[in-house]
Structure formats: structure tokens, C-alpha cells
């Protein structure tokens, strides 16, 4: 109950004030939307329809393609390339988990512990974006080189024996193995995890931590029961922003991997740009899209965060 000693609550704008008066011309919003939406319709939505149509066509480059409702393309594509699909999901999921594990402490550090270094660390997280990601991915070739210090240390500590046994690496190499690809994926999409995590951590009221402490919660309990649940929106959007591009990526698999680490993106790229088998490529791309949309919707439903945008 409000007492007289309490300051009055700040003036909340009423519903009438919140919505500005409708300006003249009820067509204004449509004129504002028209050019941008038209662009998205023609160059995003329409291509999806073209792609769907291409996937059920048959023919050849010379004679041209015709829609023959040849759905067998889907079946053939799946039965031939299911290992690459599976690999994409596995690699992307591993990279997402690694990003979460590595990114959370960094986001936490920026949000709560950085003090006056906060802005500097923020800049350092974002700045690498301005160097082409291909150049930075190539740098991993140097870092993970066979004769380099990283592989040397891992070999001396017999870590590579363990990872080879697990099938993550092969012999005493890291390059051209699944480990290198996952490492590259993790590296490339880490900022996409850190930034949303930071945004949702930063919103947490610091007094909640104090309150938890006052109620005799140990730091780890405070984290488990207060901080982490409150950061869930960041976790959800971070994992999506990492998983989706990672699942479709072919750059890391091509630059850091070998023919045994090809992901579905590599197959789509090769089919489209080198083999020129458009129906198969379109079918693969369509399956990838459907799979991602299905997983994302399911995931958002489960985690209960509907308003991500």
C-alpha cells in the first residue's frame, strides 16, 4: 500500500498519450512499407518459390528444365547426402554448446565485473568483425598448423591421443579434422552468442544478487536460481544466432577441414556452382531450410520466448 512518505510513481504515459494521434492520410504506413517489403518479396520470398519449383524439375543444362513433379529428387538427395546433413547438425550443435560455455563467462565479465573496462572489452569483442572473417579463419591454419605450438603442446600432453580415439582428430594432426572445423565454427560465431547474452545479463537488477546473498544463497546457487534463469532470453537468441548460420556454413569446413568433414553447405555449393545439378541443389537447400525452420519453431516453443525480435 502506498504511504504518503513514498515518492509518487513517475508519470506513466496513458494509452492516449502513448499512441501519437493518427496523422493525416491512413495510407502513409503502406507507402512507408511498400518499397522495402516489395524488395523482400521479390528477392527473398519469390526466390524460395523458384527454388521449390526447381527442386521438382527434371532435364539437363543443354535441353532446359521442366517441372515434372519429380519428388524422387528429394529422396535421392537425402539418401545420398544424409551423412553431410547429420554432420552439419552435429558440428553446429557442438559449436553452439562451446560458444555458450565460452561466451557466458565473457558476457558475465562485461556485464558485472568489467567496471571501467567495459567499453574497451566491448570494442575488442566487436572489432574483429571488421577484419574479413575469411582472413581470420585462414589464421587458424597457422595457429593449428602441424608443426605449430598448439599441436605440439596437445601432443606432449597426449590430448590428441584421446581426441583421435574419440574420432575428433586424426593421428597427430588437428587441421583437416572435425575438431578444427568445430573450432573454426565456434570462433566465427562466438560474438553472436556473447552480444545477446550480454544484453540480457545487463538488464538484470544487481539488487537481486544481493537479495539472493542475503538469503544465504551461495554464489553458485545465486547463479543457478537467479542469474541464469533471468538470462534465458539471451541464451535462446544466442543459441539460435549461432546454430542457424553454423548449420549452413561451408567456409570453415572447406578451409579447415577435409573431404571427410564436408557439411551440407559444401554439398549445396558444389552442386550449384560446379556440378550445375540445380534440382538436387535446390532440393538440398529446401530440406535444410525446412529442417532449420522446424527446429527453430520447436525450440522457441519449448523455451517459451516468443518475442525475440
Amino acid at each position, binding site marked *: 500500500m502506498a504511504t504518503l512518505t513514498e515518492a509518487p510513481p513517475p508519470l506513466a504515459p496513458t494509452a492516449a498519450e502513448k499512441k501519437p494521434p493518427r496523422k493525416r492520410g491512413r495510407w502513409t504506413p503502406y507507402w512507408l512499407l511498400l518499397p522495402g517489403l516489395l524488395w523482400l518479396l521479390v528477392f527473398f520470398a519469390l*526466390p524460395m518459390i523458384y527454388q521449390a519449383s526447381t527442386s521438382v524439375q527434371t532435364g539437363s543444362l543443354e535441353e532446359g528444365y521442366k517441372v515434372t513433379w519429380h519428388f524422387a529428387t528429394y529422396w535421392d538427395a537425402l539418401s545420398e547426402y544424409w551423412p553431410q546433413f547429420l554432420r552439419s547438425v552435429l558440428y553446429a550443435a557442438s559449436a553452439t554448446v562451446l560458444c555458450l560455455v565460452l561466451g557466458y563467462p565473457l558476457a558475465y*565479465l562485461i556485464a558485472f565485473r568489467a567496471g571501467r573496462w567495459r567499453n574497451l572489452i566491448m570494442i575488442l569483442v566487436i572489432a574483429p568483425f571488421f577484419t574479413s572473417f575469411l582472413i581470420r579463419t585462414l589464421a587458424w591454419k597457422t595457429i593449428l598448423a602441424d608443426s605449430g605450438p598448439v599441436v605440439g603442446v596437445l601432443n606432449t600432453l597426449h590430448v590428441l591421443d584421446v581426441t583421435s580415439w574419440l574420432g575428433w582428430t586424426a593421428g597427430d594432426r588437428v587441421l583437416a579434422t572435425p575438431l578444427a572445423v568445430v573450432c573454426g565454427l565456434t570462433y566465427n560465431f562466438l560474438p553472436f552468442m556473447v552480444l545477446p547474452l550480454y544484453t540480457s545479463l545487463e538488464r538484470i537488477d544487481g539488487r537481486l544478487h544481493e537479495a539472493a546473498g542475503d538469503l544465504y544463497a551461495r554464489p553458485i546457487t545465486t547463479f543457478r536460481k537467479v542469474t541464469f534463469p533471468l538470462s534465458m532470453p539471451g541464451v535462446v537468441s544466442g543459441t539460435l544466432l549461432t546454430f542457424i548460420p553454423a548449420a549452413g*556454413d561451408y*567456409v570453415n569446413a572447406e578451409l579447415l577441414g577435409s573431404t571427410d568433414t564436408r557439411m551440407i553447405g559444401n554439398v549445396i555449393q558444389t552442386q550449384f556452382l560446379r556440378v550445375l545439378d540445380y534440382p538436387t541443389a535446390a532440393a538440398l537447400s529446401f530440406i535444410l531450410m525446412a529442417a532449420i525452420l522446424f527446429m527453430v519453431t520447436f525450440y522457441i516453443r519449448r523455451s517459451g520466448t516468443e518475442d525475440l525480435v
Partner: protein
Amino acid sequence: MPFVNWFRRNLVVIAGLLTLGYLLLPNVVVTVFSFNKPKGRFNYQWQQFSTEAWKDPCGVAGMCGSLSLSLQIAFWATLGATVLGTMIAFALVRYRFRARGAVNSLIFLPMAMPEVVMAASLLTLFLNLGAQLGFWTVLIAHIMFCLSFVVTAVKARVMSMDPRLEQAAQDLYAGPAQTFLRVTLPIAAPGIAAGALLAFALSFDDFIITNFNAGSTVTFPMFVWGSAQRGTPVQINVIGTAMFLVAVLFVLTSMVISNRRNRQKA
């Protein structure tokens, strides 16, 4: 055990800094190797110190041309996406209209789609229409995928704007145009700038969509990709290092300026 206690208290800081190191390590390598003088065609192994590449950054055939092409595309894509995206953002926040849900999903979907899917489907469209692949198809694609990010950035800013400011302007006899130019736009400017910066970075660095839709046109990321197969010139690292430094300097200067301005106001 003071050390163990200190360690436990600062565990999260140490872990966070290690992650930061992981993020920055490649940039360090890129910088160091811009001073390398490799023996073969590939610049992956350290040989000896040299500043040759820095003295002759455009010494590689085609690289600086691709760089300037990328900058041009990024400029026009940023302009296009920022104008179209800002208009959409204003319409979304300020007006009521039909099919709002459909509009929202059309804007959200490009951000939730793997790049390779957009790239492949756009290429099917261009192939079906018989379009000549090159500068224009790349520009069209870049505006398309930057648009949604601009909308999100501008929308966040316009939403947090106090509508009473505009009412106040109108109470003071400002016309709609004047209100927009002197009140609304200046307040929305940081959001628009953030959106534009994001669009520029996304467009400049895009590889997957560009690779599908560029035909024989070579942007800077495509040049780097090609060189990963043919041999990586040291000059790539020079450009990478210079871009990193320019970005950090740019952000630091703008921070110093805004700090000083805030202090003057106080």
C-alpha cells in the same frame, strides 16, 4: 589459502578473459604475419621479418580492385538498406495497419535463414530470369539481407522514444515536416547510424551470398577465398590488419568525442 580464494572469486573473470583471448588470437596472428616473408605461395608459416607488403599493399594483381569494388557495393547496399529499413521501422512502430504479423515474419525470416539457402534460392531466381550476374545482382542481394538488420536496429530506438516530444513540437506550431526533421529524425539518428554501420559491416564481409550471385565479379572476400586455393599473398594480412586498426581507432575516437560532449553538458 589466499591464492585459492582469490582464484575462486575471480574464476569468471579469468574464464572471460581467456575467451576474449580466443576471439583476438586470429587478429594477432593476422597482424604478425603481415610482417612475414613467406617462402612459398602460402603465408601460413613464419619465415622472416619484412615490411615489404606494407610498403606495397596493392602489389598483388586484382586485390585492390576487389577491395574498392567491395567498398562500393557496401556503400550502396548500406544506403539502400538504411533508407528502406528506416521507413519500415517507422511504419511498424508508429502506425497501425493490416497484416502486421505477416510483415513481421517477412522481416524476421531472412535473419533466421541459413545464408546458403538464401544464396541458392536467389541464384535460381536470377538464372530463371536470365539476369546477368555481377555488380547489380550482388547489390540486390546485399540490400535484401541487410534490410532486416536495419529494421531491427532502428525499431529498437524509435520504440524507446517518448512520443510526447513530438506532441510538444506540434504544440509549439511545428508542422509535420518540421517536427520530423528537427525532433524525430535527430532522436532516431543513433538507431539509424547503428543500423547503417551493421549493414556496412555485413555487406563488406559477406562471402556466401556474394559467391553464389557474383558471376565472374570478384569482391574482396571472394579474392581471399580464391587466394586460399591459389596462394595467400602477405598483402591480404596487411589489409586485414589495417581494417582492424581503422575500426578500433574509429570507435575509440567516437567514444572520446561523446565523452567530452557529455562532460561539457554536465
